């Protein structure tokens, strides 16, 4: 103990004397006493022009082709206009299962095991998935193997085997994952927040059940695949070690003479329903920390307010030096992770949300602090310093979006896929000037317009008794934080998703 105290004193002395020496030597070695006094050479940066890399393949797909000779690798990503929104009622999970099995259940000429073995020997990474509103097939491999890889890709895309034993194995893995649906409070939070944000019947919230997975037949998988995996329904992004013209020729060959026609793409449904304002709680008595989502209706990314919304959210809870982080984490130590997000939806408005996790008894207090910050950013103008830090941060970080050829190819392909390139071809070119144009008045205006606390939905997952008890010294009642009513939500049977009976109050 003595030793520690002695050292602490010595350290204090060291800091003081070092401080003086810094001041006296500041002129000597030319070190400024504040970083604001540094000046930097200009950084001239223009994002790559999308049109330069865009190729319309005669066989159907739009491709983005970005040669990059640094490493002997080739990366191919194929995006498919399909998604879980196309799952037929009663067969929830079909899109996901098709997506996984496409590359993991063999092809016409190769059994699943033979295919896996060959790819593993080549150290090639082949994977596929169908998520909410997109399917994807990706292949990353050494450039010396690119012809063999494209051959495999062609077979996977045109003639997947959907081998019965692989279907059964994947179903069993999905069922076992399903059984863990209530084990982790973060899983419960994510699921229930989705229900509250978009409505239980919105396609995104239609959950696979044991029955829906078991109903899927090999014929269903094949039909789903043939409906959507056809050339003109695909966008391709390729980067890596190849010659541009040669690669275009290879891609064109990859998609020629397709054996099936497919169906015309279907628009992503947008019929979301936001929950009634109020506090919603799921009781998970065995955890000592409550997980909280605070939700408000959001915007689409093509909303004219979007850049102002992004800056407003960055100041409120987006960055590490944002208000919610400073208040809930920095000042009060009530959470490790506290943040807000206000992402713009591609097809339909997403939500504004504040998320944090705090020990059960301070959940209500932490939520009340976040609400204070929401009120404040709508009520008072942000400071110039906050505004400039946020805007400069966005603008100066901008080149990182295109840091690698792989990232660049993916951004271009995504903009093609979602239609943004067609409607806003200069989106990235104008990105920085649109951010620079955001004013303090804009920030306050969008905060008032969108952060309407009368609509607030709060979801808390954790120990009910403790969360409702609150913490001495902070007279805040979680259940009374919003104008709306308090609702305890039931857990759901993990295999049927039917509500389970609420546990009786103690």
């Amino acid at each position, binding site marked *: 103990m003595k*030793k520690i105290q002695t050292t602490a004193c010595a*350290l204090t002395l060291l*800091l003081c004397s*070092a*401080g003086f020496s810094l001041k006296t030597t500041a002129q000597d*070695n030319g070190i400024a006493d504040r*970083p604001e006094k540094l000046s*930097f*050479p*200009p*950084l001239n*940066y223009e994002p790559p022009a999308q049109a330069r890399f865009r190729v319309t393949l005669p066989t159907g797909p739009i491709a983005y082709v970005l040669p990059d000779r*640094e*490493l002997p*690798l080739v990366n191919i990503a194929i995006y498919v206009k399909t998604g879980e929104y196309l799952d037929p009622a009663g067969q929830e999970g079909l899109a996901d299962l098709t997506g996984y099995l496409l590359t993991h259940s063999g092809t016409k000429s190769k059994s699943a*095991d033979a295919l896996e*073995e060959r790819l*593993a*020997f*080549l*150290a090639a990474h082949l994977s596929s998935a169908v998520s909410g509103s997109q399917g994807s097939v990706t292949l990353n491999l*050494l450039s010396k193997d690119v012809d063999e890889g494209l051959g495999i890709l062609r077979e996977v895309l045109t003639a997947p085997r959907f081998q019965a034993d692989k279907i059964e*194995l994947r179903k*069993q*893995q999905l*069922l076992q994952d399903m059984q863990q649906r*209530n*084990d*982790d409070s973060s899983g419960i939070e994510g699921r229930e927040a989705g229900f509250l944000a978009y409505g239980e019947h919105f396609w995104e919230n239609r959950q696979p059940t*044991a*029955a829906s997975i078991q109903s899927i037949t090999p014929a269903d998988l094949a039909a789903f695949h043939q409906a959507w995996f056809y050339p003109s329904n695909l966008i391709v992004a390729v980067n890596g070690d190849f010659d541009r013209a040669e690669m275009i020729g290879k891609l064109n060959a990859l998609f020629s003479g397709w054996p099936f026609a497919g169906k015309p793409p279907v628009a992503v449904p947008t019929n979301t329903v936001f929950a009634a304002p109020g506090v919603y709680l799921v009781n998970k008595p065995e955890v000592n920390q409550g997980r909280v989502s605070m939700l408000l209706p959001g915007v689409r990314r093509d909303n004219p307010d979007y850049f102002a919304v992004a800056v407003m959210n960055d100041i409120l809870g*987006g*960055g*590490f*030096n944002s208000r919610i*982080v*400073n208040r809930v984490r*920095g*000042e009060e*130590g009530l959470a*490790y*992770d506290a943040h807000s997000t206000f992402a713009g939806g591609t097809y339909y408005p997403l939500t504004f949300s504040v998320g944090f*996790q705090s*020990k059960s008894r301070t959940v209500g207090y932490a939520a009340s602090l976040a609400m204070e910050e929401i009120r404040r950013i709508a009520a008072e103008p942000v400071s110039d310093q906050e505004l400039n*830090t946020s805007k*400069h*941060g966005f*603008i*100066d*970080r901008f*080149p*990182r979006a*295109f840091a*690698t050829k*792989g990232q660049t190819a993916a951004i271009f392909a995504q903009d093609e896929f979602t239609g943004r390139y067609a409607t806003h071809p200069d989106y990235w070119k104008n990105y920085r000037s649109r951010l620079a144009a955001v004013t303090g008045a804009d920030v306050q205006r969008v905060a008032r317009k969108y952060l309407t606390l009368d609509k607030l939905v709060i979801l808390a997952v954790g120990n009910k008794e403790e969360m409702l008890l609150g*913490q001495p010294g902070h007279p805040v009642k979680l259940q009374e934080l919003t104008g709306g009513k308090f609702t305890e939500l039931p857990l759901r*049977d993990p*295999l*049927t998703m039917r509500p*389970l009976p609420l546990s009786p109050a103690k």
Partner: protein
Amino acid sequence: MTPHQRCDKPIFLLSCLLLATIGPASAQKVPVMEKTLSNGLRLLLVERHDEPTIAGGWVAHVGSSNEKPGMTGIAHLFEHMMFKGTRTIGTSDYEKDQAILKQQEEVRDEMRSEECQMRKRLRRGEMDDLLKPEDWTPRYRELQARFKQLVEDERKFIVKNEFDRLLSGAGASGMNAFTSEDMTAYFETVPSNKLELWAWMESERIFHPVFREFYSERDVVFEERRMRTDSTPLGKFQEQFNAMFWESAPYSWPTVGWPSDIAAISKAQADEFYATFYAPPNITLILVGDFKPEAAEAMVRKYFERIPRGSKTAPDVKTLEPKQMAEKRMHAEADTNPQLQILWHTVPFGHKDSYALEILGELLSNRTGRLYKKLVLGSGVATDVGAGQNSQKWEGSFSASGEVREGHKPEEVEQGIYNCLETLKLEPVPASELQKVKNNFAAAEYRRLSANSPILMHLIENDGLGDWREINEAGPKFQAVTAAEVARVAGKYLTPENRTVAVYTRKAGTAPKTAAKE
């Protein structure tokens, strides 16, 4: 919109994969320039002009394995404190700030003696929980209120998160840090014209850190512990399994710290820790990206050589793990599907057997590996399996794990794993199977070089574990591993008496409904 997503300050637990994969002698070497500054600080430079950015970081050769009982978690808490500012950053009035910090410590000293009394009461069964406000003594509550007032007073002089603001507002991204058992690292990516800002900020916080908001940050770390360990289905069990596995090596406690210790770490301990482990000879700076090496070196020397060498030398870790004499087992009932994990004591980073053990791990892993073929596709007793060598700085371990398929028992998976291992000990691995694994090590070496930031992280990991040169030297060693060596290391390390086994079954009453059988 480019997302500015900043996760937080996580504790990373080193994955064996990070170490597992370097390619043949012919593969691309990372051209690293190494310099030593006048104060003992080391500098690694990798020039790369693909993008107009510089990934900058530094690794302090200290982690939770340098801690002692009673102050576990301090290395990680310290990492959090390094974001709180310096003499000039984070405060509007350094002198007043210091005066309040001193007063705060006086109150905290009194609180500590009260906490000592409360611990006595706890041990006598007179209270249940040191953290429950209703159980606190009146004196402690009064001190708590006084301390709270001093925190309010200090807030007048705090410039909130200024360290982060100055960097983020200048275009820094990915700013973060991690603490593991073996190292603590700090890193971000800056636009290439802001190298001087990076040098200013990072040298300033190594030189003059001020541990403001120390006690509220302790609470933040406690919330991190609740999030990662206490409130996850397996967190607390894995923590105890780890504590059971390591007998004497300083890996038996969690990096985040035991709950009692997090709540008891004092600022004086943090000061001592800084003087011992953050002295320049214990730190390596790393820059990867768009700069001219001569100019970058000069910039680094200008800013970092002002930091005095310090009088302390970080002590070596002396305790060696004793040879395990008998199998150890844990059976846990948890909110989870039945599964198991087996750990064996093996060898640390850079040990000559570590390369064959890494290869062995890969032979067992993935969908074309031995375990998947035998237990998932073959006998069908498991739905998922995994294996791998984890070479840490002072010691190492080998892990195998599996999730039990419904209708089967953990014992079947466990026995299946042992059967696979016995085969590997007795029969040499066919040449093509060994080559498949080596091909993947070689390709992974290229994949890791795609951007500045992964190269930085790879250098941090290797330097933190003992030697950055491994990023170029391990590849040929992996390629040289023979089938006989694989069999030898399997036989030497993966023995019954050397293993510790955790079996998890679903806690009664939490079993899901059986709608699956409908």
